């Protein structure tokens, strides 16, 4: 009637279907999580600010970053990638996004943090528009699930301004 092969086939198909269903449910369950993250960033110091020989402005910042991202973690969260980006517009560019600092948060226990950092990536403009430039600092997070849909959001912090003169 039913050969070994047929039985094995049915069992395997059933197991895979069940696993796929569980993965889908785990991914969907992320949507029921209510998020209440908050962050605070302070520009402590402009370490230096100059025009490079290429004509582009470059600035080096010291930052104090504190954030609480504990609410992003669910049972389906593998890690949260968090980064702080400077965002501003110039006459040439509608949007410039420059990542200044980033980190990987592996678990809820590490999701409430305070850190003092220099900008990890070079803050270079495409041109010479940074003097007196007002910019936003935006804390972005990208949640990587154990399985399923990835999602991302951000907190925009505005009202930061670079000095009028190089130093």
């Amino acid at each position, binding site marked *: 009637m039913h050969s070994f092969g047929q039985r094995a086939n049915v069992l395997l198909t059933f197991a895979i279907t069940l696993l796929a269903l569980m*993965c889908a449910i785990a*991914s969907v369950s992320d949507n029921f999580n209510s998020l209440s993250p908050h962050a605070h960033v302070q520009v402590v110091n402009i370490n230096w600010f100059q025009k490079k020989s290429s004509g582009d402005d470059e600035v080096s910042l010291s930052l104090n970053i504190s954030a609480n991202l504990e609410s992003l973690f669910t049972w389906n969260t*593998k*890690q949260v*990638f968090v*980064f702080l*980006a400077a965002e501003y*517009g110039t*006459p*040439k*560019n*509608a*949007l*410039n*996004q*420059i*990542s200044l600092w*980033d980190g*990987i948060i*592996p678990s809820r226990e590490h999701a409430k943090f305070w850190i003092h950092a220099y900008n990890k*990536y070079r803050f270079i403009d*495409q041109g010479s528009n940074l003097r007196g430039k007002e910019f936003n600092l935006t804390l*972005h997070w*990208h949640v*990587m*699930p*154990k*399985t*399923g*849909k*990835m999602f*991302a959001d951000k907190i925009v912090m505005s009202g930061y301004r670079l000095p009028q003169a190089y130093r």
Partner: protein
Amino acid sequence: MGWIEDTVTSVKSIQLRQALHQTISIGLIVTSALMIWKGLMCITGSESPIVVVLSESMEPGFARGDILFLRMSKEPIRAGEIVVYNINGRDIPIVHRVIKVHERKDTGEVDVLTKGDNNEEDDIGLYAPGQRWLQRKHIIGRAVGFLPHVGWATIIMTEKPLIKYILLGGLGLLVITSKD
């Protein structure tokens, strides 16, 4: 002696019928796989809707053998997104995160810089000689979904071709020998 001829012709016709049936089954499997792939291409707008992660540069987020689902929409590319890009002269696409974006006001064209989460350096060293930014044309999709470990079969098969041939041969034999 007519019954012998009858038997012979009936046996012959059965074998022909079976052979045809098997050919059609194989054809069905191949064409449905092709249809699913092409259908996914249409829905996602990406020329390769599913990719297998081959390197450790995005650890611990993505490990070797994980599968990523890609989408390519009209939406602008933004910092933090994980994109898959192709560099001229390289055949393997790279999955890395966008860390800088400069979007032109007049044309909307973007200059993008990427970096692997697990790499110390940004990707300028991976780009073509003299290339400093990625443009939209290099990017074939952004990662939207994730399934762990499922891609290991692909990695094993590309790295140990013998296993691939054994597997393919076995499957072919199974299809040919199976009765229905």
